[in-house]
């Protein structure tokens, strides 16, 4: 599916540009966007090295295990395929917690480490059930404090920049529940398709 989406985005863009007279823009965008991606990847190195270093200490110090113990009943339900006390669980929980507090710079490296730990369980290029559940939760973005949005609202002179915290929290609670349900639904649909 991702192959189609990827190719179709580029194809539609190029064909549309033929008739819309925007080929110049497309041509320029090709190179600037490639450059942006390289810059973004390089800027990730700093947070990745820093947080993976920190989290390694946290892991050895037993902090992740403590987090794991605290949330075990929920984790066991959400990730039935992960072995008990697997290191991936600690990283998954740490990622979701960091996301909740709007700490994107710490959340991404920790989340990637969780993916790496899950990859160790099934050495293949196909996404595992646990990975998909994790990313479903991650993209649904349960947020307690949307810091960036509050900053924008402050910048444009809102009388009460934080008044959207309530609606954001409720909306992201809806998406998180939806993510869990969709994840379950498509997992079972996928399974029955494989059996046929």
């Amino acid at each position, binding site marked *: 599916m991702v192959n189609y989406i990827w190719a179709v985005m580029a194809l539609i863009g190029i064909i549309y540009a033929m008739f819309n007279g925007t080929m110049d823009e497309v041509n320029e965008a090709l190179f600037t966007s490639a450059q942006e991606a390289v810059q973004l990847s390089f800027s990730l190195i700093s947070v990745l090295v820093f947080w993976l270093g920190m989290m390694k200490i946290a892991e050895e110090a037993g902090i992740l295990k403590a987090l794991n113990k605290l949330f075990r009943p929920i984790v066991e339900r959400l990730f039935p395929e992960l072995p008990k006390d697997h290191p991936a669980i600690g990283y998954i929980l740490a990622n979701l917690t960091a996301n909740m507090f709007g700490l994107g710079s*710490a959340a991404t490296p920790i989340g990637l480490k969780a993916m790496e730990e899950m990859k160790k369980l099934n050495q293949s290029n196909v996404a595992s059930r646990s990975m998909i559940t994790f990313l479903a939760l991650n993209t649904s973005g349960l947020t307690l404090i949307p810091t960036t949005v509050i900053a924008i609202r402050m910048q444009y002179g809102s009388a009460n920049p934080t008044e959207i915290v309530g609606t954001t929290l409720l909306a992201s609670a809806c998406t998180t529940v939806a993510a869990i349900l969709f994840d379950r639904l498509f997992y079972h649909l996928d399974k029955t398709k494989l059996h046929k």
Partner: protein
Amino acid sequence: MGWITTFSTWILPLFILLILLIATKKKLPTYELFVEGGKDGINMAFSILPFLLGMFVAITILRSSGALDAFIGLIKPALMFVGIPPEIVPLGIIRPISGTAALSLTAELTQNYGPDSFIGRLAATMQGSTDTTLYVLTVYFGAVGITRMRYALKVGLLTDLVGIIASIVLTKLIFGY
């Protein structure tokens, strides 16, 4: 208001303090562990690069050609018919695809309509309540070399749809429009 800013600047340093305190108390070789763990980060960043670059280029082609705007214009009447405010449609469509584009759209809407207007509040809620699905899937699967995402994209995009609807309904209900 002030406490939130204080909170977000204090939480990370405090978290680092906690990790280092516990680790030092347990007599762990903190610096060595830090360096060992950090090494992984370099490989990950390089592993992500081609995935991110491929996605970025395709998205930018689509946006710069004007096709995305044309598509939004095309479906606007249908969305207005079901009660979705037309001003918010571009944000709803771009939010799952491009994080930077969505953020600048949110800023633009906040500026044009005012942060305390219906559109301003709705944009803030929409921006804050979900993450950029395509970016997250690209980076996370890219970092560990997963090329077959299976149903992950379907789940992510349907969840985003729920997010858009929930944002509209909740903003209307809570702020009483």
